[in-house]
């Protein structure tokens, strides 16, 4: 489906060797932010996907290999950008502080 699942979809049953996963956690003052939105922008800055964070602040994308930007929006915060490089068979972890 096209839809976003909170925190990103489960890795259960997914052959991670064929995926370029980008995942992480959004925190504010060290505490997880469960009502943030993380969007994945491609190398030209164009929107590719967006997920709301889970109750524990987590998010996950299945990208392609290459350079990406994560843009995080949270209530009462300005948006925060984080650069990340994805590669097939690798899980790229990103810690986002808002």
């Amino acid at each position, binding site marked *: 489906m096209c839809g976003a699942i909170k925190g990103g979809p489960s890795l259960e049953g997914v052959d991670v060797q064929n995926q370029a996963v980008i995942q992480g956690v959004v925190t504010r003052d060290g505490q997880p932010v469960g009502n943030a939105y993380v969007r994945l922008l491609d190398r030209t800055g164009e929107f590719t996907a967006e997920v709301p964070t889970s109750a524990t602040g987590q998010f*996950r994308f299945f990208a392609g290999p290459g350079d990406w930007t994560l843009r995080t929006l949270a209530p009462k915060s300005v948006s925060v950008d984080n650069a990340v490089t994805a590669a097939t068979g690798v899980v790229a972890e990103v810690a986002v502080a808002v």
Partner: protein
Amino acid sequence: MSRESALVTADWVEANLNDPKIVLVEVDEDVEAYDKGHIPGAVKLDWKKDLQDGVRHDFVSKEKLEALLSSKGIANDDTLVFYGGNNNWFAAYAYWYLKYYGHDNLRLLDGGRKKWELDSRELTTDVADRPATTYTAKDADTSIRAYRDEVIEAIGVKNLIDVRSPDEFAGRLLAPAHVPQEAAQIGGHIPTAGNVPWSKAANDDGTFKSDDELKALYADAGLDDAKDTIAYCRIGERSSHTWFVLKEILGHDNVKNYDGSWTEYGSLRGVPVALGDEPGVA
């Protein structure tokens, strides 16, 4: 149609929460989102369980829609205000779908659930109690829905707009990047389609851009006002968002949503497919 007749703001929704003839309807891709908290008084439609046939690869029939809306306590003369997650993709899909079956008063909440949450507005887990009605749908309005044969005939003739991300358009991704990249169909796009990602029509908070910005966006993309337009994406919900912009906000006449979209087209034998960032030739 116009922005004023098709869109409402979060402030307007808050001011009208107690009007029984205005029904908020949440439609999410994450079908558990409503249960964790929704706008007070809102009813839930599950885009998969409620709106898809379940056997045939199609959405529910007129009769099933009538039974569904009756059970939700929705009357023919109610104003329905749709909202949801993912920048209103599925809310726009439900709006389009109700338009297809002839409901008169339809609105979309600008910014959807995200804007509401980012504004820290009230959410509740209380489920609205609306007595059942007897809802009557009209015959399908086929002027807003495109089928595959019409899409193939439109190559090089009508405006085709692919609203997926550039990487999906070019064939580098098969699905939006929040789902695993596994799909039966091949990658690419319908030849001669322009790529105007749905997201270019929205601000970061999910609200729609201004009329002037939207007009410039599609003019720059080469949309020919003299031609009919067909929008598509992967499964028809992001293209509902663009259909909404062109038809309901900007008031273009002949705009159709191809809800079969790339999952159907990219699985067909023998149809032309273009790869890469350029539209390609007919």
